[in-house]
C-alpha cells in the first residue's frame, strides 16, 4: 500500500509515528476501523453462509449420513453423520443471527459507513474517534460470544433469529449466550450511530450543505437514526428475556404453560406476544438498516457509471427520510397470524402498503437514471444494475405478505424466506459487492481485476436466482418453512426436487465466491495500480483525498462548490465536474 504515489504531499507537522498495535489494531482512525469492520464482517458472512450450506444437505437429502462431517462435528451435532433436529434448528437460528447482526449490518454501516462517509463529507475523522474504536470492539466481543455459544452444553441458540418466546425462554443455556452477545452488538451499534449522526451534522466541510450530500451519506444518516432508536427496545426485550431465564420471572410465559407434559414452574401471567412486539419494533426498522446503505452505494455507482446526474436526487432523499420515519410504524405486519385482532392488522396493513411507495420511488429514480445514458459496464456497475431487478423482486413479493388476506396462505412458508432473501442477498449483498469493487482502489491504491470480477458477478447472479426463485414457488405451493424433514408430508415429498435444486444452487453459489476471494487478496499486492486519486472520474469528495488517505484524510480541508452528481454538464471540457474543484 505504501508504494502508491501521493499526489498531495502530506504535511508532516501533526504526524506522529504510532506503533503497530496503535496503528492497525487499537486504532482510532476511522479508515482502519472501517477496514477492521469490513474484514471481520466478511469472515462472519462466510461463516454464516457455511452454516446454511450444511443445513441445505439435510433439506436436499433428509437423514442421509455424511460420515466425515459426523466425525468433525461429533456426537452432539451429527452422530454417525446424520444431522440431529436440534442441530438443524441451531444452524437456522445462528445463520440468521450471524448474517444480519454480524455480517451485513457491520459491513454496510460499520465498514462502508466508517470508511467512506467521513471522506465524502470532507471531515478529518469521526466526531468521537475513541468511541468509534469502542464500537468496533463491542462488535468484536459480541461476535466472539456468539461463536463461543457453539461450545456451551446444549449448543447455541435454536429458536430462530427471532428468538420467539416461550420457546426461547425454556431453551438450553446457548440462548442466554445469544442474549449476552446481542447486548454487546446493540451497544456497538448505539455507539456507532451516535458517532455517525454527530459527524454528519457537525463536521461537513465548507460549502457542503445538506442538499449537496451524496445519497450514500443521506442513507447512512437515516440508518444511524434507525439504529439509535430501534435497537434499545430490543435491548429492553433482551433484559426481560434474561430475567425470565435467570431470575425465574415470567414476562413472556403465560399462566399454566405445559412443556413435554410438565408444568413450567414460573408464576405465569406473562405475554408471549410482548416479545414479538418488542422484537419486531427493532427488527422491522432493521430491514431498512439492511437495505438503505445498499441503496446509497448503488446510487453512487449508478451516477458514476451512467455519467449523468441521478434522476430525482431530492426525490430519492425525501423517500429515504420518509422510509426512516415510517419504518417505526409497520412492525406488526410480521404478526398478522398471532391473533392480535383485525383492527391492529388493518392498521399495520395500511402502513405497510404506504411504506412500499417510497421504496418504489427510489427504485424508479435509479432505473430512470439509466435512461439515455452511455453506461460504463464496470464490475461495480454490473452489481449495481443487477441490484435493481433483484431488489424489485424482493420488494414486490413482500406486498402479498403485507396484505392480511394473502398472508394467511403465505405465512410461515418458504415464500417468506424467498422474499426477504431477495431483498437482502441478491439485493443488499450485491450492493455491498458493488461497493467493494468501487472503493477498493481508494482503500488499497490498486484496482480489483475486472475479468475475475465479471466471472464472480455472472455466476453469483445465476446461482442466487437458482437458490431463491424456487423458494417462492415452493411457498406458494404450501411448503412450510423450518421443517426438519421436508419429505414428511406428501406435498413436501412431491416438491423434493426443488429442495435438491436449491441446495445444489447454494453450493455452486459458494464456489462462485472463490474468484472474489482470490481477486480480493491477489489484487492487494498484484492488482493494477491506480494512476490518479480519482480512477473512476467521480465527483464526490472521497476521490479528492490522497490514495490511500493518510491519518487526517485531507492535507488541507477541502471546499465544496457544487452538487454531488454533476456529470456531463453541457459546455464543460470533461464529462465530470467534481464537487471539490472550483471552476470559473
Amino acid at each position: 500500500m505504501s508504494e502508491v504515489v501521493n499526489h498531495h504531499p502530506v504535511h508532516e507537522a501533526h504526524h506522529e509515528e504510532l506503533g503497530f498495535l496503535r496503528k492497525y489494531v487499537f486504532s482510532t482512525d476511522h479508515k482502519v476501523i472501517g477496514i477492521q469492520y469490513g474484514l471481520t464482517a466478511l469472515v462472519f458472512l462466510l461463516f454464516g453462509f457455511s452454516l446454511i450450506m450444511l443445513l441445505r444437505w439435510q433439506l436436499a437429502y433428509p437423514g442421509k449420513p455424511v460420515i466425515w462431517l459426523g466425525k468433525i462435528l461429533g456426537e452432539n451435532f451429527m452422530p454417525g453423520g446424520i444431522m440431529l433436529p436440534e442441530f438443524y434448528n441451531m444452524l437456522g437460528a445462528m445463520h440468521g443471527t450471524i448474517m444480519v447482526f454480524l455480517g451485513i449490518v457491520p459491513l454496510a454501516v460499520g465498514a462502508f459507513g466508517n470508511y467512506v462517509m467521513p471522506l465524502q463529507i470532507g471531515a478529518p475523522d469521526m466526531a468521537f474517534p475513541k468511541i468509534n474504536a469502542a464500537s468496533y470492539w463491542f462488535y468484536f466481543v459480541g461476535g466472539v460470544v456468539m461463536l463461543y455459544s457453539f461450545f456451551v452444553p446444549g449448543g447455541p441458540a435454536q429458536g430462530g433469529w427471532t428468538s420467539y418466546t416461550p420457546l426461547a425462554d425454556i431453551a438450553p443455556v446457548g440462548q442466554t449466550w445469544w442474549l449476552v452477545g446481542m447486548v454487546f452488538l446493540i451497544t456497538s451499534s448505539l455507539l456507532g450511530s451516535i458517532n455517525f449522526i454527530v459527524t454528519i451534522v457537525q463536521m461537513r466541510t465548507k460549502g457542503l450543505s445538506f442538499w449537496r450530500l451524496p445519497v450514500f451519506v443521506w442513507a447512512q444518516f437515516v440508518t444511524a437514526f434507525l439504529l439509535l432508536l430501534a435497537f434499545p427496545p430490543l435491548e429492553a426485550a433482551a433484559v426481560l428475556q434474561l430475567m425470565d431465564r435467570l431470575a425465574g420471572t415470567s414476562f413472556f410465559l403465560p399462566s399454566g404453560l405445559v412443556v413435554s407434559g410438565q408444568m413450567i414452574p414460573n408464576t405465569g401471567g406473562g405475554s408471549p406476544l410482548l416479545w414479538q412486539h418488542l422484537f419486531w419494533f427493532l427488527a422491522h426498522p432493521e430491514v431498512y438498516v439492511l437495505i438503505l446503505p445498499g441503496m446509497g452505494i448503488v446510487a453512487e455507482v449508478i451516477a458514476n457509471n451512467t455519467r449523468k446526474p441521478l434522476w430525482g436526487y431530492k426525490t430519492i432523499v425525501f423517500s429515504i427520510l420518509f422510509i426512516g420515519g415510517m419504518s417505526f410504524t409497520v412492525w406488526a405486519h410480521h404478526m398478522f397470524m398471532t391473533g392480535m385482532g383485525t383492527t391492529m392488522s388493518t392498521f399495520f396493513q395500511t402502513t405497510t402498503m404506504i411504506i412500499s411507495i417510497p421504496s418504489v420511488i427510489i427504485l424508479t429514480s435509479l432505473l430512470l437514471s439509466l435512461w439515455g445514458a452511455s453506461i460504463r459496464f464496470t464490475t461495480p456497475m454490473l452489481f449495481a444494475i443487477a441490484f435493481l431487478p433483484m431488489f424489485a423482486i424482493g420488494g414486490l413479493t413482500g406486498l402479498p405478505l403485507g396484505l392480511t388476506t394473502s398472508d394467511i396462505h403465505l405465512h410461515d412458508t418458504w415464500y417468506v424466506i424467498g422474499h426477504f432473501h431477495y431483498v437482502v442477498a441478491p439485493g443488499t449483498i450485491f450492493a455491498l459487492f458493488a461497493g467493494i469493487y468501487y472503493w477498493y482502489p481508494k482503500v488499497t491504491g490498486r484496482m480489483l481485476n475486472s475479468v475475475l470480477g465479471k466471472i464472480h458477478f455472472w455466476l453469483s447472479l445465476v446461482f442466487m436466482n437458482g437458490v431463491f426463485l424456487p423458494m417462492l414457488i415452493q411457498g406458494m405451493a404450501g411448503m412450510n418453512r423450518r421443517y426438519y424433514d421436508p419429505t414428511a408430508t406428501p406435498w413436501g415429498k412431491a416438491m423434493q426436487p426443488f429442495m435438491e435444486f436449491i441446495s445444489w444452487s447454494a453450493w455452486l453459489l459458494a464456489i462462485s465466491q472463490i474468484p472474489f476471494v482470490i481477486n480480493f487478496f491477489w489484487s492487494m499486492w498484484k492488482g493494477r495500480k491506480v494512476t490518479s486519486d480519482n480512477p473512476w472520474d467521480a465527483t464526490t469528495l472521497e476521490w479528492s483525498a490522497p490514495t490511500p488517505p493518510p491519518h487526517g484524510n485531507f492535507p488541507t480541508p477541502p471546499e465544496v462548490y457544487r452538487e454531488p452528481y454533476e456529470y456531463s454538464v453541457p459546455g464543460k471540457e470533461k464529462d465530470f465536474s467534481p464537487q471539490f474543484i472550483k471552476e470559473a
Partner: protein
Amino acid sequence: MEIPYSVKANPVTGIPNGKFGIWLFLASEVMLFGALFSSYVLLRVGADVWPHGRDVGLSIPLATLNTMVLIASSVTMVMAWASLKMDQFKKFRLYLGLTILLAFGFLVVKYFEYTAKFHHEIYPSTSTFFAIYFTLTGLHGLHVIGGIIVNSYLWGPGAKVWRSEPDRFANRIEYAGLYWHFVDLVWIFLFPVLYLL
C-alpha cells in the same frame, strides 16, 4: 489532527459535538426505558389482578425520601456546573462531591428496600408485579451507579483537565449533568408508576 467543534460550538448548530452526542444517547435511553414502560402497561392491562405497590409492601415514605434525595442531587449537579462557569473550582468540588454522596444515599435506601423484600421472601419470580418492579428499579439503579462512576472520575483524576482546558472540562460536567438529570427523570416516572398507581 484536531477534530473540529470538539470544544467550541459549531456556528450552524450552536452546540459542540459532545453535547449533540449526549442528547442522542439520551434519546436512545428514552427508547430503552420507553420500551420497558410500554411492557409494564401491556402486562398490567393484560393481567387479571394487579396489586397497588403499597398493598404488597412497597414503602411510599422511603420512595418519597429517595425522590427528594435525587432531586437534591440534580440541584447540586447544576450548582457544580455553575461554579465552574464562575471559575470557582473549590465550590465545584464541593457540589459535585455532594452530588456523588446523595447518589450513594439513594443506593443505600434502595439497598434497604431490596433486602426488606428478600427477608419476606419476595423475589422477581414472586409475581409479574415484582418482576417488573425489580427489573425497572434494578436497571435504574445501574444507571445511578454509572452516574456515580462518571462523576467520581470527573471529581478526581478527570479534574486535571480543568487546568489545561477549562472549557473542555466545563463541557464534560455539563454532559455528565444532562445524563444525571435524565436518571432523575426516570425515577420521577418510576415512583408513581410502581409505588402510587
